[in-house]
């Protein structure tokens, strides 16, 4: 989230699209209700199904899964056509007026630079025109035909209301009603918040779904303001923390990126990371990358990271492809290229696409270590559970180790919520039986591996042998000590501008502004610096006081970065420094300082007249309507059909789906077509369960006991399916036999002149736990991910459905 949960109450319009906030985030949804009651807000839901969120919305519009870019591009078109944009904001704070290179273009579904063989782009034309000094050229009058706003207008011109309706199946009147409400927030004192989640992310165009909405929000002047922002509701209490500390194969902590194998030395690596300003006088905060990186290396390797060994750059792994994401890892397991797997806090057999492939891949391993508080499907993949997990253990040679772990309530630590709040939590009880903390287990593996490297040597022992491990309890480091490591220390006295000592050598740092690139500071994750200082554990703060009652609560926990609650908050004030919305100000310029209820996302004494843009991480300091080369598909979002789609891409039939998505050959062969699988399916969570965990709990199992799918009344009638009757749902990859919920909440959509039926597939049931046994939605889903993040396309794929007889035990039970 750019904003906070509490801040949702400041919105005038709440758009729930790409997520089902009331069902997946019922506690946070209180702020939407608060916005309705206290701020007279209107709530819009755009979703393939009429959800529990829709039940409390003012407007509901249906949409075909996988067509959000078309919908939102249509919104952009209408905003531009009607002039319903916050003009002064767009002019001053976005790259609307910057001029794009002449050789940039878009034709027949492809941007310039496409390489059909490699399935990727040469992105060199996706850039601004620059002057002699290397600065981007700008035309603030927006007259230049190639300034960004004109190219954007031209790009979205195809998305007329008729076209949106034709692609998305949204009735035009509903679509226009939604557009009108969205447009109402272009006024400087009005804000729209949008709450999204995996409903946007889990598509082969997931990142671009989100990009499109970001463009809408920039045009409306809704970024950086109270009640606005781009608000990703994270699906797990610490998934924000997972991304922050870089638990992805191509990331390092604090959104630094791992080197690739072409970047053979440190200076080369730095060249492409320390972004230089693209406009005069801009902050371009990534210029400090070197300080973040060197401090990270010091946290990891301590004294062994020195200037003369390039801060141990050579000990970092170098990627030899775009990343070892989970889709790739299972592809490699299936091919026998990975044969050992430590599976920590993850249940891929139940939650990753194409379950049959996952099961085969696990069966190819030599060993599988599962660290989990629960008896997961993954740990039992080898066992025969009947049709829900058919297996012949005699044929599986994988050695499986189950290491029971404690869960969050059984250990101290921090969790990072969607709003980037780091909140400390305290152990409530001891773990059961032989459960041990993840820290204890990982530490044990580390010590044993280091011992083996010491004794036996090895191809490359340095990264393991030199790892710094100075903890009071080296067997199970205290979480507080680890938190201090993340925050970082100074190794020398730090002085302020007047020369006075601010911090003594060995003390904890106050903020990431103190990080140095000369090896005198350390920080395990630069964005966390400030979370644990000499003043104590800032994450443990529990002061709920909230100046102006605007949902900032600056002394509750600690928010990265710098305890800032609303990102880009400089944009909440006009260029002169006065709040756009005087009723809900965040910060303002008082003549010498930026003051207000939040920590300014800006130089605290940077004068408005200096013309420094509010988006300080970006090289030009501006919000990007045109994303330069930052996305793999192109600088503007474009509608591509899901890899399994019931209709052709009516915009450009030759480029149906995301042209740069990575698809493995076997996975492509496992895509079905509309002739065999005529219905669109989408997967989702229900309020009663949390992912695939809570089926282990009796109460949750009582509240949603058994696997089912949701189908509309028209389709049910066509197929002779009765309410609660048994159905057989098939995709090219697998079969699910379960009950049907025949509902009015899913209606057939008119797409491209034909009728499209949507089938809803909740994800919760598997073959372990207390609920009734289920096949799992991932039996059906395709193994293809978003081209930028490799998030699997769980939200749009093709299935067939038939009425079937109850399974045998059911017959017996009913007899």
């Amino acid at each position, binding site marked *: 989230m750019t904003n906070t949960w509490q801040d949702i109450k400041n919105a005038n319009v709440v758009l729930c699209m790409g997520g089902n906030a*009331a*069902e997946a985030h*019922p*506690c946070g*949804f*209180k702020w939407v*209700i608060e916005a*309705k*009651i206290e701020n*007279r807000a209107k709530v819009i839901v755009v979703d393939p199904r*009429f959800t*529990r*969120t*829709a*039940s*409390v919305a*003012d407007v*509901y519009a249906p949409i075909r899964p996988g067509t959000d870019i078309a919908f939102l591009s249509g919104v952009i078109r209408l905003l531009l056509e009607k002039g319903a944009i916050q003009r002064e904001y767009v002019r001053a704070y976005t790259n609307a007026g910057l001029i794009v290179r002449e050789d940039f273009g878009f034709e027949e579904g492809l941007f310039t630079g496409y390489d059909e063989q490699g399935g990727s782009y040469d992105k060199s034309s996706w850039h601004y025109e620059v002057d002699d000094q290397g600065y981007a050229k700008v035309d603030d009058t927006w007259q230049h035909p190639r300034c960004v706003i004109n190219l954007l207008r031209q790009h979205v011109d195809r998305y007329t209301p008729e076209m949106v309706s034709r692609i998305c199946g949204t009735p035009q009147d509903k679509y226009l009603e939604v557009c009108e409400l969205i447009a109402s927030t272009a006024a400087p004192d009005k804000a729209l918040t949008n709450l999204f989640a995996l409903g946007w992310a889990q598509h082969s165009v997931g990142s671009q779904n989100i990009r499109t909405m970001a463009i809408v929000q920039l045009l409306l002047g809704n970024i950086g303001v109270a009640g606005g922002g781009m608000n990703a509701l994270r699906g797990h209490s610490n998934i924000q923390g997972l991304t922050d500390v870089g638990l992805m194969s191509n990331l390092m902590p604090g959104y630094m990126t791992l080197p690739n194998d072409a970047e053979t030395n440190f200076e080369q690596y730095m060249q492409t990371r320390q972004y230089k300003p693209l406009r005069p006088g801009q902050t371009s905060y990534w210029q400090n990358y070197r300080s973040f990186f060197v401090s990270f290396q010091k946290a990891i390797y301590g004294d062994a990271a020195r200037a003369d060994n390039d801060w141990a750059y050579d000990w970092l792994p170098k990627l030899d492809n775009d990343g070892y994401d989970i889709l790739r890892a299972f592809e490699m397991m299936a091919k026998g290229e990975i044969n050992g797997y430590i599976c920590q806090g993850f249940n891929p057999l139940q939650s990753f696409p194409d379950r049959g492939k996952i099961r085969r891949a696990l069966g190819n391993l030599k060993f599988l270590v599962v660290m989990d508080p629960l008896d997961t499907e993954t740990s039992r993949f080898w066992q025969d559970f009947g049709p829900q997990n058919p297996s012949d253990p005699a044929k599986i040679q994988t050695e499986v180790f189950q290491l029971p772990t404690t869960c969050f309530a059984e250990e101290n630590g921090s969790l990072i919520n969607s709003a980037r709040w780091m909140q400390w939590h305290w152990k409530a009880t001891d773990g059961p039986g032989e459960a041990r903390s993840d820290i204890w287990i990982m530490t044990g593996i580390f010590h044993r591996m280091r011992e083996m490297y010491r004794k036996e040597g090895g191809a490359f022992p340095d990264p393991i042998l030199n790892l710094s491990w100075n903890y009071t309890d080296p067997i199970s480091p205290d979480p507080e000590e680890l938190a201090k490591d993340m925050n970082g220390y100074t190794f020398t006295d730090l002085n302020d501008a007047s020369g006075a000592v601010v911090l003594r050598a060995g003390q904890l740092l106050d903020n990431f502004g103190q990080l140095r690139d000369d090896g005198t500071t350390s920080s395990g994750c630069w964005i966390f610096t400030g979370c644990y200082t000499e003043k104590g554990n800032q994450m443990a703060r529990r002061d709920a006081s909230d100046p102006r009652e605007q949902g900032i609560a600056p002394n509750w926990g600690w928010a990265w970065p710098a305890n800032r609650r609303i990102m880009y908050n400089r944009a909440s004030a006009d260029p002169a420094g006065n709040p756009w919305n005087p009723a809900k100000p965040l910060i303002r310029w008082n003549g010498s300082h930026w003051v207000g209820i939040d920590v300014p996302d800006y130089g605290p004494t940077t004068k408005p007249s200096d013309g420094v843009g509010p988006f300080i991480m970006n090289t030009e300091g501006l919000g990007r309507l045109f994303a330069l080369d930052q996305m793999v598909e192109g600088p503007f979002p474009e509608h591509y059909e899901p890899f399994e789609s019931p209709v052709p891409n009516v915009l450009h039939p030759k480029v149906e789906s995301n042209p740069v998505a990575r698809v493995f050959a076997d996975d492509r062969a496992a895509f079905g077509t509309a002739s065999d699988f005529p219905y669109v399916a989408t997967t989702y969570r*229900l*309020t*009663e369960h949390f992912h695939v965990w809570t089926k282990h709990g*009796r*109460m949750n*199992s*009582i*509240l*949603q*006991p*058994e*696997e*089912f799918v949701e189908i509309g009344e028209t389709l049910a009638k066509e197929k002779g399916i009765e*309410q*609660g009757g048994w159905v057989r749902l098939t995709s090219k990859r697998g079969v699910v036999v*379960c*009950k*049907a*919920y*025949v*509902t*009015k*909440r899913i209606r057939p959509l008119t797409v491209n002149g034909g009728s499209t039926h949507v089938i809803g597939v909740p994800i919760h049931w598997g073959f372990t736990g*207390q*609920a*009734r046994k289920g096949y799992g939605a991932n039996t059906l889903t395709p193994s293809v991910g978003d081209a930028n993040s490799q998030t699997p396309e769980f939200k749009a794929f093709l299935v067939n459905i038939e009425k079937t007889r109850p399974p045998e035990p059911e017959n017996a039970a009913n007899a």
Partner: protein
Amino acid sequence: MPDLQSQDYIRRSASTLTPPSIRNHEQEVAKLIDVSRCIGCKACQSACMEWNDLRSEVGRFQGSYDNPMDLDPSTWTLMRFTEWENEQGNLEWLIRKDGCMHCEDPGCLKACPAPGAIVQYANGIVDFISANCIGCGYCIKGCPFDIPRINPVDRKSYKCTLCSDRVTAGLEPACVKACPTGAIMFGTKTDMTRWAGERIADLNSRGFQNAGLYDPPGVGGTHVMYVLHHADRPSLYAGLPDAPRISPLVGAWKGLFKPLALAGIAAAALAGFFHWVVVGRNEVQPEDDAEAQRLMRDSGEPK
């Protein structure tokens, strides 16, 4: 529930005398369920199970989100979901938390033949005192909302207590505490009625012209009230009675049959008295004694 609050009784089942309410300073309470801000998350159901330590069976999917499918002795509150297409052709998903309404004039209490098995406190809560329950099921017949359920194991009747144990200790009911959206509120009946008015005005402004408060007069009003978008048609919400009242059978039992039966008992007693006055007491005659001896012989009883 155990009998914690006998000093608060204002009504007691099958008792002719109104019990003296020692504590007379109690305010009437009410739970207000604002259907228009309920998201059907079932946090109230979980909280009810947790607080009262109830677990029903892991059931089956039966074609709706209502789980379990009905109230049962271990399910004292239940979300009921209704899909309804309104006059404009738009869908509405009406979600109602079902459970005891805590009627001001409780049909269950009226129907109950077991002295003290059902009581009403001065704050309006209607409570079942399990120790006194005889499991006859008359309370079910008496309830206009079809709420109480008999547990077949202990043959006692159960329903929502409005967390009378928590309320006594100054806490809100568990469901109220758990509700994430503030759809369930708790306070004095006066406050809740006033707050409902504000909510209704908001709903009116959003196009729900018939929004209103459900506090049905047929049962003297209730201590669980609903804000409904369609207060003109309560039955849209999974059959919430449009105009609930206590079954005439209960009236007949209490109003007609019970006095008749009492008259019958009185008549028998009176007849006995007059028999004693006129004829004197019954005495055993020698032939009665001989007959008794014969019966014992025939039955082979040892002497």
